[in-house]
């Protein structure tokens, strides 16, 4: 088991490094522009550009800079550990930018994840239990709509209808908790709902399929043969066994959203990590992009480990293997 964990950990680190490297490759010195221009003013001179290149290590081949980056990440820089360097955009420390943005994303993802886990599983269970009834059809029709409708469209439409026309919620933009929990909630509820909708759809379909498959298992028949109530059969015996695969993708989905809720964050102007990365990507701000990419990749890695543990908790076969 320990050996397995160590191997997993090593592999995870390797994945993070490769992801970072690919990101680096794609974004380093985008043919589109020289990041040094940001610091060189309206009328740059060759000399000032050269100076800035030196400052940002842009005069070195990309693998050298990648080396710098990995080194700083590993041993820390003047901002402490992990060293993520300074944004090419405004020379603010990427670490502090990420710390600034992270709560927004975490609130967004946590809220949405709660919604989609509850509703996704509930709808899936309902649909499976009421299989081939109109409830099932409506639920699965809704789920199909959920996976078909793009977040940016739902976001814009919901802002227009719910906020602009009906005035039921706050508009776009992030309101920190310190401005009052009511204002915060009123601004978060739409992004939560819209982001969650896609996942509710996915989870409902997944839960339904898993549960139907589980309900076809022999041990479910055993449970019924014991004379257990249908409720016990479905929730205690059926759902328990269906949850393991859901736990797996739940962990991964959350992790990927750490830097991946780009569209939701931009539609609702949340300006979390996804927005930071997107903004970095279109302004050639490599350190910001990398900072967020590292966060996401690390979140994926950590979540994978967490999922393993949860799996062991959920499934004794894994635990005792």
């Amino acid at each position, binding site marked *: 088991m320990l050996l397995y964990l160590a191997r997993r950990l090593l592999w995870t680190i390797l994945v993070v490094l490769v992801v970072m490297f690919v990101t680096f490759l794609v974004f380093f010195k985008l043919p589109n522009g020289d990041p040094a221009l940001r610091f060189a003013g309206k009328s740059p001179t060759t000399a000032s550009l050269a100076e800035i290149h030196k400052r940002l290590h842009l005069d070195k081949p990309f693998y050298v800079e990648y080396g710098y980056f990995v080194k700083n990440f590993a041993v820390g820089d003047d901002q402490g550990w992990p060293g993520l360097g300074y944004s090419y955009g405004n020379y603010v420390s990427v670490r502090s930018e990420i710390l600034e943005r992270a709560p927004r994303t975490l609130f967004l993802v946590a809220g949405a994840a709660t919604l989609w886990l509850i509703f996704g599983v509930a709808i899936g269970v309902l649909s499976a239990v009421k299989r081939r009834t109109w409830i099932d059809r409506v639920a699965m029709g809704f789920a199909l709509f959920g996976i078909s409708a793009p977040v940016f469209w739902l976001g814009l439409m919901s802002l227009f209808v719910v906020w602009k026309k009906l005035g039921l919620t706050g508009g776009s933009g992030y309101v920190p908790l310190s401005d009052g929990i009511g204002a915060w909630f009123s601004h978060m509820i739409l992004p939560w709902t819209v982001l969650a909708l896609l996942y509710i759809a996915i989870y409902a379909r997944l839960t339904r399929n898993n549960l139907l498959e589980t309900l076809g298992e*022999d*041990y479910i*028949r*055993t*449970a019924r043969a014991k*004379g257990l109530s249908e409720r016990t059969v479905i929730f205690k015996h059926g759902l*328990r*066994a269906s949850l393991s695969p859901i736990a797996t993708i739940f962990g991964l989905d959350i992790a990927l959203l750490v830097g991946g809720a780009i569209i939701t964050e931009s539609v609702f102007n949340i300006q979390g990590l996804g927005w930071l990365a997107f903004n970095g990507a279109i302004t050639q701000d490599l350190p910001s992009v990398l900072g967020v990419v590292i966060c996401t990749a690390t979140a994926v890695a950590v979540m994978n480990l967490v999922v393993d543990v949860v799996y062991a908790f959920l499934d*004794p*076969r894994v635990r005792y293997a």
Partner: protein
Amino acid sequence: MAGVGGSSLLEVRDLSVRFRTRDGVVQAVSNLSFTLERGETLGVVGESGSGKSVTSLAIMGLLNRNFADITGEILFEGRDLLKLSPAELRKVRGKDVSMIFQDPFACLHPMYRVGSQIAEAVRAHSDVSKSVAQARAVELLDAVGIPNAAVRARDYPHQFSGGMRQRAMIAMALVHNPAVLIADEPTTALDVTVQAQIVELIDKVKRDFNVGVMLITHDLGVVAETASHVLVMYGGRAMEYGPSYEIFHAAQHPYAWGLLESMPRVDRKLDVLIPIEGSPPSLLNPPPGCPFNPRCKYRFDACDKQSPKLVQLPGGHLDSCFLSTERKQAEWRDKVSEEISQ
């Protein structure tokens, strides 16, 4: 051995089960009738897909009535189980009628401890505390021959061997001293050495608890050892039904002959084992006529026109075949019984 009010322990009358599937209607069981009394074993034999398991599930009330049309009567101590509400049926299931299944590997929930799964069965029908239920589970595990039962009760199913799991299943089925125990191919998935032990255990349970056992199997050997009556099924129909001795010594139906011929026996060389040609029929939109007709060596014109009725024969057993009694007796005497006894 009559049950309460003179009625049999379990009497199935004219049972038919039809499944509506995406691809059409499946006629899984047709016009099946039989009875079972306390302390006796009814062996139900037939190939895969002959409707044995469906029949047992129908008795247990485990078929989803939304997809299965069930007609006929299943009388348990005179009460028609098919007319009970789901809640009433649940009270019977696992208490008066219990069942053990073919694959003990798949029939225990992999994520709960064996003991607690049995305890759960205890608490399903009696309002006792968890510890009492657990104690009962250990007691039964011990009774079915699990060594060190108190400790093993805390194991998960995957830590049990196949035979132990089947023992656990039997223990689970016995928690409420049921009147009927249905065993659906209880030994098929087990090692040969374990098979005998399980068969023996079921037989012992039958005697100790005075239950009526419905033993579903395609192993005629097991039936020969334990059953008092035998029901031969094919294509969802009863082909032959009667006392065990009658079936084994004066089988009347060509399909029963086929089964007997294909039965491996310790005293017989393997090279003369004769399989039945062809494969079982599709129950999806079955053709008219005797279901065995396409594979029957003795078929004649009448066989594909309509289905033969089950007819009472001398010697107290029933048979459905258009062949004349004389012809059947002649065939049995001259060929089949000879081959079997070789």
